[in-house]
Protein backbone atom coordinates (compact mmCIF):
# COMPACT_ATOMS: atom_id res chain seq x y z
CA UNK A 1 0.00 0.00 0.00
CA UNK A 2 2.69 2.42 1.13
CA UNK A 3 5.00 1.69 -1.78
CA UNK A 4 2.13 1.75 -4.27
CA UNK A 5 1.24 5.27 -3.15
CA UNK A 6 4.89 6.23 -3.52
CA UNK A 7 5.03 4.93 -7.08
CA UNK A 8 2.03 6.97 -8.19
CA UNK A 9 2.61 10.15 -6.19
CA UNK A 10 4.91 11.99 -8.58
CA UNK A 11 3.25 11.07 -11.90
CA UNK A 12 -0.08 11.99 -10.31
CA UNK A 13 1.19 15.40 -9.22
CA UNK A 14 2.80 16.05 -12.60
CA UNK A 15 -0.46 15.24 -14.34
CA UNK A 16 -2.64 17.30 -11.99
CA UNK A 17 -0.36 20.31 -12.13
CA UNK A 18 -0.15 20.31 -15.91
CA UNK A 19 -3.88 19.86 -16.29
CA UNK A 20 -4.63 22.60 -13.78
CA UNK A 21 -2.15 24.93 -15.47
CA UNK A 22 -3.79 24.23 -18.82
CA UNK A 23 -7.25 25.01 -17.46
CA UNK A 24 -6.07 28.19 -15.75
CA UNK A 25 -4.08 29.31 -18.79
CA UNK A 26 -0.80 29.74 -16.98
CA UNK A 27 2.29 30.78 -18.99
CA UNK A 28 3.70 27.38 -18.22
CA UNK A 29 7.12 27.73 -19.80
CA UNK A 30 8.03 31.10 -18.30
CA UNK A 31 6.72 30.14 -14.89
CA UNK A 32 8.60 26.85 -14.95
CA UNK A 33 11.86 28.60 -15.78
CA UNK A 34 11.33 31.05 -12.93
CA UNK A 35 10.79 28.17 -10.51
CA UNK A 36 13.78 26.28 -11.89
CA UNK A 37 15.87 29.37 -11.20
CA UNK A 38 14.84 29.15 -7.55
CA UNK A 39 15.72 25.47 -7.52
CA UNK A 40 19.14 26.26 -8.91
CA UNK A 41 19.78 28.86 -6.22
CA UNK A 42 18.55 26.51 -3.50
CA UNK A 43 20.90 23.74 -4.61
CA UNK A 44 23.86 26.14 -4.76
CA UNK A 45 23.02 27.56 -1.35
CA UNK A 46 23.29 24.12 0.24
CA UNK A 47 26.95 23.76 -0.83
CA UNK A 48 28.51 25.45 2.24
CA UNK A 49 26.39 23.33 4.60
CA UNK A 50 27.18 20.15 2.71
CA UNK A 51 30.90 20.92 2.66
CA UNK A 52 30.93 21.60 6.41
CA UNK A 53 29.09 18.40 7.30
CA UNK A 54 30.81 16.15 4.75
CA UNK A 55 34.25 17.27 5.97
CA UNK A 56 33.41 16.76 9.65
CA UNK A 57 31.82 13.36 9.03
CA UNK A 58 34.55 12.08 6.72
CA UNK A 59 37.18 12.97 9.32
CA UNK A 60 35.05 11.33 12.00
CA UNK A 61 34.69 8.25 9.81
CA UNK A 62 38.25 7.96 8.47
CA UNK A 63 39.78 8.28 11.94
CA UNK A 64 37.86 5.26 13.20
CA UNK A 65 35.83 7.42 15.60
CA UNK A 66 32.58 6.48 13.82
CA UNK A 67 33.29 2.77 14.32
CA UNK A 68 33.98 3.49 17.98
CA UNK A 69 30.77 5.52 18.28
CA UNK A 70 28.71 2.80 16.60
CA UNK A 71 30.25 0.01 18.70
CA UNK A 72 29.50 1.95 21.91
CA UNK A 73 25.91 2.90 21.08
CA UNK A 74 24.63 0.10 18.85
CA UNK A 75 24.07 -2.46 21.66
CA UNK A 76 21.49 -0.05 23.09
CA UNK A 77 20.05 1.45 19.89
CA UNK A 78 19.78 -1.92 18.13
CA UNK A 79 17.30 -3.00 20.80
CA UNK A 80 14.97 -0.33 19.43
CA UNK A 81 15.70 -1.08 15.78
CA UNK A 82 17.77 2.09 15.35
CA UNK A 83 21.13 1.79 13.57
CA UNK A 84 23.59 3.84 15.68
CA UNK A 85 24.77 5.52 12.45
CA UNK A 86 21.62 7.66 12.30
CA UNK A 87 21.90 9.00 15.87
CA UNK A 88 23.96 12.06 14.81
CA UNK A 89 21.19 12.87 12.29
CA UNK A 90 18.52 12.66 15.00
CA UNK A 91 20.48 15.10 17.16
CA UNK A 92 21.20 17.52 14.33
CA UNK A 93 17.71 17.56 12.79
CA UNK A 94 15.93 20.06 15.08
CA UNK A 95 19.01 22.32 15.25
CA UNK A 96 20.13 22.93 11.69
CA UNK A 97 18.31 22.17 8.46
CA UNK A 98 21.46 22.48 6.36
CA UNK A 99 23.50 20.42 8.81
CA UNK A 100 20.92 17.65 8.89
CA UNK A 101 20.69 17.65 5.10
CA UNK A 102 24.48 17.23 4.99
CA UNK A 103 24.37 14.24 7.32
CA UNK A 104 21.48 12.66 5.40
CA UNK A 105 23.27 13.09 2.08
CA UNK A 106 26.46 11.62 3.53
CA UNK A 107 24.63 8.60 5.02
CA UNK A 108 22.82 7.94 1.74
CA UNK A 109 26.05 8.24 -0.23
CA UNK A 110 28.05 6.02 2.14
CA UNK A 111 25.54 3.24 2.79
CA UNK A 112 23.55 3.50 -0.45
CA UNK A 113 20.04 4.94 -0.92
CA UNK A 114 18.41 1.51 -0.87
CA UNK A 115 20.11 0.26 2.29
CA UNK A 116 18.14 0.27 5.52
CA UNK A 117 20.20 3.18 6.86
CA UNK A 118 19.68 5.07 3.61
CA UNK A 119 15.92 4.60 3.68
CA UNK A 120 15.64 5.44 7.37
CA UNK A 121 17.77 8.57 6.96
CA UNK A 122 15.60 9.64 4.00
CA UNK A 123 12.42 9.17 6.02
CA UNK A 124 13.87 11.00 9.03
CA UNK A 125 15.01 13.94 6.95
CA UNK A 126 11.56 14.36 5.42
CA UNK A 127 9.43 13.82 8.50
CA UNK A 128 11.00 16.08 11.09
CA UNK A 129 11.78 19.77 11.02
CA UNK A 130 14.30 22.36 12.12
CA UNK A 131 12.14 23.31 15.10
CA UNK A 132 14.59 25.72 16.74
CA UNK A 133 15.20 27.59 13.51
CA UNK A 134 11.49 27.98 12.80
CA UNK A 135 10.81 29.17 16.36
CA UNK A 136 13.64 31.70 16.26
CA UNK A 137 12.65 33.03 12.84
CA UNK A 138 8.90 33.29 13.40
CA UNK A 139 8.91 34.56 16.97
CA UNK A 140 11.86 36.83 16.23
CA UNK A 141 9.95 38.49 13.38
CA UNK A 142 7.32 39.82 15.83
CA UNK A 143 9.68 40.40 18.79
CA UNK A 144 8.17 37.67 20.92
CA UNK A 145 10.78 36.51 23.45
CA UNK A 146 8.67 34.30 25.75
CA UNK A 147 7.96 31.15 23.76
CA UNK A 148 5.83 29.56 26.51
CA UNK A 149 5.14 25.93 25.57
CA UNK A 150 5.96 26.21 21.85
CA UNK A 151 9.34 24.50 22.35
CA UNK A 152 7.72 21.57 24.15
CA UNK A 153 5.06 20.94 21.53
CA UNK A 154 7.52 21.43 18.66
CA UNK A 155 10.08 19.05 20.10
CA UNK A 156 7.47 16.44 21.05
CA UNK A 157 6.39 16.45 17.39
CA UNK A 158 10.03 15.95 16.33
CA UNK A 159 10.64 13.12 18.78
CA UNK A 160 7.42 11.43 17.70
CA UNK A 161 8.44 11.88 14.07
CA UNK A 162 11.77 10.21 14.84
CA UNK A 163 10.20 7.26 16.67
CA UNK A 164 7.47 6.85 14.04
CA UNK A 165 10.11 6.87 11.26
CA UNK A 166 12.06 4.12 13.01
CA UNK A 167 8.93 2.03 13.57
CA UNK A 168 7.52 2.36 10.05
CA UNK A 169 10.92 1.77 8.39
CA UNK A 170 11.46 -1.36 10.46
CA UNK A 171 8.00 -2.57 9.43
CA UNK A 172 8.20 -1.70 5.74
CA UNK A 173 11.87 -2.01 4.82
CA UNK A 174 13.14 -4.88 6.96
Amino acid at each position, binding site marked *: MVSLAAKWAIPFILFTVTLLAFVRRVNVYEVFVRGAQEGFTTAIKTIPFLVAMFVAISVFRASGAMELFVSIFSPVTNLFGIPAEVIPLGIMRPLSGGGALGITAELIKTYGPDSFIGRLASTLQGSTDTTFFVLTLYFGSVNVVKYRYAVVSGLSADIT*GFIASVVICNLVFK
Partner: protein
Amino acid sequence: MVNIIWMGMLLIGMIVAAINGKIDAVTTAALKGAQAAVDFALGLIAIMAFWLGIMKVAEEAGLIRLLSRVVKPVTAFLFPSVPRDHPAMGAIIMNLSANILGLGNAATPMGLIAMKELQKLNRGDPQKASDAMCTFLALNTSCITVIPATVIGIRIKAGSVNPTEIVGTTIFATACGMAVGVTVDRIMRRIYGYRKWR
Protein backbone atom coordinates in the same frame (compact mmCIF):
# COMPACT_ATOMS: atom_id res chain seq x y z
CA MET B 1 24.77 23.52 19.96
CA VAL B 2 25.47 22.97 16.26
CA ASN B 3 28.91 24.47 16.89
CA ILE B 4 29.60 21.95 19.63
CA ILE B 5 28.53 18.97 17.53
CA TRP B 6 30.57 20.08 14.53
CA MET B 7 33.69 20.85 16.55
CA GLY B 8 33.19 17.67 18.53
CA MET B 9 33.19 15.52 15.40
CA LEU B 10 36.35 17.17 14.10
CA LEU B 11 38.24 17.19 17.41
CA ILE B 12 37.26 13.66 18.46
CA GLY B 13 38.03 12.51 14.92
CA MET B 14 41.52 13.93 15.09
CA ILE B 15 42.24 12.59 18.58
CA VAL B 16 41.04 9.11 17.63
CA ALA B 17 43.05 9.30 14.40
CA ALA B 18 46.18 10.20 16.38
CA ILE B 19 45.64 7.26 18.73
CA ASN B 20 44.93 4.86 15.87
CA GLY B 21 47.96 6.14 13.98
CA LYS B 22 45.73 7.27 11.11
CA ILE B 23 46.53 10.95 11.30
CA ASP B 24 47.50 11.06 7.61
CA ALA B 25 44.01 9.87 6.77
CA VAL B 26 42.52 13.03 8.29
CA THR B 27 43.90 15.32 5.59
CA THR B 28 42.71 13.09 2.75
CA ALA B 29 39.32 12.59 4.38
CA ALA B 30 38.76 16.32 4.88
CA LEU B 31 39.63 17.21 1.30
CA LYS B 32 37.74 14.27 -0.17
CA GLY B 33 34.73 15.17 1.97
CA ALA B 34 34.68 18.71 0.64
CA GLN B 35 34.96 17.45 -2.94
CA ALA B 36 32.16 14.93 -2.42
CA ALA B 37 29.91 17.64 -0.98
CA VAL B 38 30.33 19.92 -3.99
CA ASP B 39 29.83 17.05 -6.47
CA PHE B 40 26.70 16.10 -4.62
CA ALA B 41 25.24 19.61 -4.59
CA LEU B 42 25.94 20.03 -8.30
CA GLY B 43 24.03 16.84 -8.97
CA LEU B 44 21.17 18.16 -6.90
CA ILE B 45 20.78 21.17 -9.18
CA ALA B 46 19.08 19.07 -11.85
CA ILE B 47 16.34 17.66 -9.68
CA MET B 48 15.82 20.81 -7.63
CA ALA B 49 15.49 23.00 -10.71
CA PHE B 50 13.04 20.54 -12.28
CA TRP B 51 10.92 20.11 -9.18
CA LEU B 52 10.75 23.75 -8.14
CA GLY B 53 9.90 24.59 -11.75
CA ILE B 54 6.92 22.23 -11.64
CA MET B 55 5.88 23.49 -8.24
CA LYS B 56 6.03 27.08 -9.41
CA VAL B 57 3.60 26.16 -12.17
CA ALA B 58 1.41 24.54 -9.52
CA GLU B 59 1.54 27.73 -7.48
CA GLU B 60 0.57 29.93 -10.44
CA ALA B 61 -2.21 27.51 -11.39
CA GLY B 62 -3.73 28.06 -7.96
CA LEU B 63 -2.89 24.75 -6.31
CA ILE B 64 -2.22 26.45 -2.96
CA ARG B 65 -5.61 28.14 -3.17
CA LEU B 66 -7.27 24.85 -4.06
CA LEU B 67 -5.64 23.06 -1.17
CA SER B 68 -6.49 25.85 1.23
CA ARG B 69 -10.19 25.02 0.78
CA VAL B 70 -9.45 21.57 2.20
CA VAL B 71 -7.33 22.96 5.03
CA LYS B 72 -9.81 25.67 6.05
CA PRO B 73 -12.26 23.67 8.22
CA VAL B 74 -9.35 22.12 10.12
CA THR B 75 -7.76 25.47 10.94
CA ALA B 76 -11.07 26.87 12.19
CA PHE B 77 -11.08 24.06 14.73
CA LEU B 78 -7.41 24.48 15.67
CA PHE B 79 -7.51 28.26 16.09
CA PRO B 80 -10.65 29.06 18.08
CA SER B 81 -9.28 32.45 19.12
CA VAL B 82 -8.80 33.66 15.53
CA PRO B 83 -11.93 35.03 13.77
CA ARG B 84 -12.65 33.09 10.59
CA ASP B 85 -12.42 36.02 8.22
CA HIS B 86 -9.42 37.68 9.89
CA PRO B 87 -6.33 38.10 7.64
CA ALA B 88 -4.39 35.98 10.15
CA MET B 89 -6.55 32.97 9.28
CA GLY B 90 -5.97 33.47 5.57
CA ALA B 91 -2.20 33.66 6.04
CA ILE B 92 -2.19 30.57 8.29
CA ILE B 93 -4.16 28.57 5.72
CA MET B 94 -1.91 29.65 2.85
CA ASN B 95 1.22 28.90 4.86
CA LEU B 96 0.08 25.40 5.81
CA SER B 97 -1.04 24.65 2.25
CA ALA B 98 2.35 25.74 0.90
CA ASN B 99 4.08 23.59 3.53
CA ILE B 100 2.02 20.55 2.56
CA LEU B 101 3.12 21.03 -1.04
CA GLY B 102 6.73 21.39 0.11
CA LEU B 103 6.95 24.96 -1.18
CA GLY B 104 9.34 26.31 1.44
CA ASN B 105 9.99 29.51 -0.51
CA ALA B 106 6.30 30.36 -0.61
CA ALA B 107 5.56 29.14 2.92
CA THR B 108 7.98 31.33 4.85
CA PRO B 109 6.74 34.79 3.77
CA MET B 110 3.16 33.62 4.35
CA GLY B 111 4.14 32.37 7.80
CA LEU B 112 5.73 35.69 8.70
CA ILE B 113 2.55 37.52 7.65
CA ALA B 114 0.54 35.12 9.77
CA MET B 115 2.73 35.89 12.80
CA LYS B 116 2.33 39.63 12.25
CA GLU B 117 -1.46 39.29 12.09
CA LEU B 118 -1.52 36.99 15.12
CA GLN B 119 0.49 39.58 17.03
CA LYS B 120 -2.29 42.12 16.32
CA LEU B 121 -4.75 39.67 17.89
CA ASN B 122 -2.47 39.06 20.88
CA ARG B 123 -4.33 40.64 23.78
CA GLY B 124 -1.66 39.78 26.34
CA ASP B 125 1.96 40.81 26.73
CA PRO B 126 3.26 41.49 23.17
CA GLN B 127 6.58 39.88 24.09
CA LYS B 128 4.81 36.69 25.04
CA ALA B 129 3.56 34.08 22.56
CA SER B 130 -0.24 33.83 22.36
CA ASP B 131 -2.11 30.50 22.30
CA ALA B 132 -2.71 30.81 18.58
CA MET B 133 0.98 31.51 17.90
CA CYS B 134 2.01 28.38 19.78
CA THR B 135 -0.49 26.27 17.85
CA PHE B 136 0.66 27.79 14.58
CA LEU B 137 4.30 26.96 15.29
CA ALA B 138 3.46 23.45 16.48
CA LEU B 139 1.71 22.89 13.15
CA ASN B 140 4.45 24.58 11.19
CA THR B 141 7.29 22.50 12.62
CA SER B 142 5.45 19.23 12.14
CA CYS B 143 3.56 19.85 8.94
CA ILE B 144 2.97 17.03 6.47
CA THR B 145 4.86 17.36 3.21
CA VAL B 146 3.36 15.28 0.43
CA ILE B 147 6.55 15.18 -1.64
CA PRO B 148 9.89 15.49 0.18
CA ALA B 149 11.58 16.79 -2.98
CA THR B 150 15.10 17.37 -1.66
CA VAL B 151 15.38 13.88 -0.19
CA ILE B 152 14.10 12.33 -3.42
CA GLY B 153 16.68 14.41 -5.28
CA ILE B 154 19.47 13.11 -3.06
CA ARG B 155 18.28 9.54 -3.59
CA ILE B 156 18.13 9.91 -7.36
CA LYS B 157 21.62 11.39 -7.33
CA ALA B 158 22.87 8.44 -5.28
CA GLY B 159 21.46 6.02 -7.85
CA SER B 160 18.47 4.64 -5.97
CA VAL B 161 16.44 1.91 -7.68
CA ASN B 162 13.24 3.38 -6.25
CA PRO B 163 13.86 6.97 -5.12
CA THR B 164 10.25 7.67 -4.17
CA GLU B 165 9.72 4.60 -2.00
CA ILE B 166 10.23 6.73 1.12
CA VAL B 167 7.24 8.98 0.38
CA GLY B 168 4.78 6.70 2.18
CA THR B 169 6.94 6.20 5.25
CA THR B 170 7.66 9.94 5.42
CA ILE B 171 3.96 10.86 5.28
CA PHE B 172 3.19 8.29 7.97
CA ALA B 173 5.93 9.52 10.30
CA THR B 174 5.02 13.19 9.78
CA ALA B 175 1.35 12.49 10.44
CA CYS B 176 2.29 10.87 13.77
CA GLY B 177 4.50 13.83 14.66
CA MET B 178 1.77 16.28 13.71
CA ALA B 179 -0.90 14.47 15.72
CA VAL B 180 1.29 14.48 18.82
CA GLY B 181 2.37 18.10 18.28
CA VAL B 182 -1.25 19.28 18.05
CA THR B 183 -2.33 17.16 21.04
CA VAL B 184 0.52 18.39 23.22
CA ASP B 185 -0.32 21.93 22.15
CA ARG B 186 -3.95 21.47 23.23
CA ILE B 187 -2.97 19.98 26.60
CA MET B 188 -0.37 22.66 27.28
CA ARG B 189 -2.85 25.37 26.32
CA ARG B 190 -5.19 24.05 29.02
CA ILE B 191 -2.43 23.92 31.62
CA TYR B 192 -1.17 27.39 30.78
CA GLY B 193 -4.75 28.67 30.43
CA TYR B 194 -5.27 28.60 34.17
CA ARG B 195 -2.49 31.09 34.75
CA LYS B 196 -3.40 33.21 31.77
CA TRP B 197 -2.03 36.74 31.61
CA ARG B 198 -1.86 37.44 35.32
